């Protein structure tokens, strides 16, 4: 008993020297357990050789070290407990607390140990524990971080604690983070390497490792974190699969566009490079058969395909005129002289005004004038006749006016086909013609045509030498000639649409209440025009 006690004390003293060399690690562990362990007597085993227990005293009472007694006993032994030397650590002196510790030299695992601290003979603390359950190991050493072959991965390896019998009972925790990022933790068991996955490329990572017994056979506290180890992840290279896929997609798009272009090339070409429209399709055979000879083509084509539809409207349409009165020759005689003096009737084929003013006794004549362009014409044998008639009309407006006087209520106008007249009228006609040549636009071809027309069937329309003057409107001025009335045949007048709108409404023989509006147009500056309404 005493020999045991003596040997124990000696061994305790031997460890005193070792304690001084322990240094920094020991202090750190003590500090850690001070935080973590709630028991009064805090114990930990660093290796499988010894157990260190310590307690702190908060009392400011200046108690001597020798007052304390630290005893331990194993449960299975039914003998008195043994005591171990108590030492003091100066580390907590600043906080006003004192730290005392003791170390058991020979420890036995897997047996319950009872510990007691006495101060001055009175029990201060006690605790029962298993030594194999209070391990506080050193942190793992030689933590290395290396690159694996793949991107975003790092291999972490470390050395296990050099403890026999315990190497397969260890649990490790790896903590790693990039600069400034939160830490990520991973736990591994029974292995001393770990592959970190899901890391960013080309980044520097800091790795810590700590160790603890796994708790099945041995147990303890988490060790302190190891010294940091740094590793840099490899740069991410372009994944060849992704490159190939992107190329395939581009190729597919290209083929799609090509296909669309080829398939719709015609419509696309039409939109981008439209054809110049050509009227060839309207003239079947003109260019292919007749080589552009229009006359021949006209001659050979049947009427159904005649494309000159534009003239259909202008073709003289037969107008049936019902005339009840015969055309009296003398009527216009007295009308013609005052005619030039009157305001010109440069209305669209209407010349009511002057007529009414002049011949009050013949109001009907104005109505006749209102007939507009209804003249009695011969049926034109040819389309060119139309032009000639119109030209003649132009030259001899007074002739037309005269014809109006011949009629009564009827709305037809006959043109004097005799050759004309008086040179005294020529001047006025000239003036009139100059101003009011409505259809001169049609006849801009020249004076010669007009002169030729003067001798046409149309009658004595004096040619105006200055037929260059165009007026915006067309009007007919009936020449002041009288012409022998034609028979009760139909006379026709073809009016070419010279682009000027002319309103003329056929008036029935019953002379209803037609209202005729005459176009107003400006005749230049000489004679103001007046448009009128004529009420029949």
């Amino acid at each position, binding site marked *: 008993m005493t020999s045991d006690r003596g040997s124990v004390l000696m061994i305790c003293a031997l460890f005193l020297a070792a304690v001084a060399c322990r240094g920094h690690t020991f202090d750190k562990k003590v500090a850690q357990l001070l935080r973590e362990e709630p028991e009064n007597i805090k114990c930990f085993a660093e290796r*499988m*050789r010894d157990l260190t227990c310590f307690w702190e005293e908060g009392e400011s009472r200046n108690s001597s070290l020798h007052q304390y007694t630290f005893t331990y006993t*194993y449960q*299975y032994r*039914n003998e008195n407990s043994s005591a171990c030397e108590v030492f003091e650590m100066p580390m907590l002196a600043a906080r006003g607390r004192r730290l005392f510790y003791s170390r058991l030299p*020979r*420890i*036995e*695992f*897997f*047996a*319950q140990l009872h510990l007691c601290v006495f101060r001055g003979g009175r029990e201060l603390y006690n605790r029962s524990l*298993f030594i*194999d359950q209070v391990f506080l190991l050193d942190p793992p050493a030689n933590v290395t971080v290396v690159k694996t072959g793949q991107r975003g991965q790092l291999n972490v390896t470390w050395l296990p604690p050099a403890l*026999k*019998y315990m190497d*397969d009972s260890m649990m490790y925790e790896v903590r790693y983070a990039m600069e400034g990022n939160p830490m990520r933790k991973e736990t591994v068991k029974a292995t001393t390497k770990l592959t970190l996955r899901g890391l960013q490329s080309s980044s520097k990572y800091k790795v810590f490792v700590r160790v603890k017994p796994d708790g*099945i*056979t041995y147990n303890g506290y988490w060790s302190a974190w190891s010294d940091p180890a740094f590793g840099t992840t490899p740069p991410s290279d372009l994944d060849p699969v992704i490159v190939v896929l992107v190329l395939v997609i581009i190729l597919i798009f290209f083929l799609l566009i090509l296909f669309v272009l080829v398939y719709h090339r015609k419509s696309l070409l039409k939109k981008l490079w439209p054809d110049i429209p050509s009227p060839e399709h309207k003239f079947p055979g003109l260019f292919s058969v007749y080589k552009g000879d229009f006359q021949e083509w006209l001659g050979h084509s049947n009427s159904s395909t005649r494309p000159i539809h534009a003239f259909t409207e202008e073709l003289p349409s037969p107008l049936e005129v019902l005339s009840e009165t015969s055309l009296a020759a003398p009527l216009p005689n007295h009308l013609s002289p005052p005619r030039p003096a009157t305001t010109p009737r440069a209305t669209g084929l209407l010349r009511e005004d002057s007529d009414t003013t002049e011949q009050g006794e013949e109001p009907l004549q104005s109505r006749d004038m209102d007939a507009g362009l209804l003249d009695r014409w011969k049926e034109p044998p040819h389309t060119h006749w139309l032009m000639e008639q119109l030209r003649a009309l132009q030259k001899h407006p007074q002739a037309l006016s005269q014809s109006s006087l011949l009629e009564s209520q009827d709305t037809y106008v006959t043109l004097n086909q005799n050759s004309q007249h008086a040179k005294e009228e020529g001047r006025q006609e000239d003036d009139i013609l100059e101003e009011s040549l409505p259809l001169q636009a049609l006849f801009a071809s020249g004076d010669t045509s007009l002169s030729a027309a003067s001798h046409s069937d149309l009658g004595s329309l004096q040619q105006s030498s200055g037929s260059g003057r165009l007026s915006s409107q067309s009007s007919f001025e009936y020449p002041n000639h009288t012409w022998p009335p034609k028979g009760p045949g139909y006379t026709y007048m073809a009016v070419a649409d010279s682009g000027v709108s002319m309103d003329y409404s056929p008036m029935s023989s019953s002379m209803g209440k037609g209202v005729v509006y005459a176009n107003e147009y400006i005749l230049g500056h000489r004679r103001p025009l007046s448009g009128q309404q004529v009420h029949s």
Partner: protein
Amino acid sequence: MGNRRGHGRGDEDPVRDYADSEMEIPRLFALLLIVLEWTRPGLPSPLRPICDLRVLDHFIKEARDAEATMRVCKEDCSIGVPLMVPLTRVDIGVWEKKNMAEQAQEVQTGLWLLNRAFISLHTSISNSALHSHIDASVRNIASIGQVLRSLSIQDYVPTVSGIDLQETWQVSSAPELFQVHINFLRGKVRLLLANAPVCKQEVS
């Protein structure tokens, strides 16, 4: 059937060849050998060594669960007669000095003692819930025996007189017994299994 050709042999089965009749005896002989091998008396064929200590960890966890259950039972779990149980303490220095055979003997003696103690407990305690734990512990002890055998450790059955009493102590309650069981498994048994030479040979 219509295609059957007439053979010289007539009704004989055309599959059977003349060589088959000669092979019949070797066939029977091979079959006989196989059967005898299975039913060979004596030591069974060596088991594959169980070096994975997770088996033992499983037993330890089960024992822990049982001990946790036992902790709450106080009155029902007391035993009249103290039970002899092995010492669970391990002094590493002392343990390392022993050889393999001594260690094995120590372990097997302890297992035998525990087995006996559990059986005694089973008869003492009437609580059926505890019985299940006791039975599980007994089964686990038997399994550990199998594990030891797989590691080529000879069976050792101690005699009552041959037991070193210094290596035993006595418990008087069921929780204590289970505690001893746990500690024994964690300590000596594990140390023995971890250092079995058969397993070390495989590793190296």
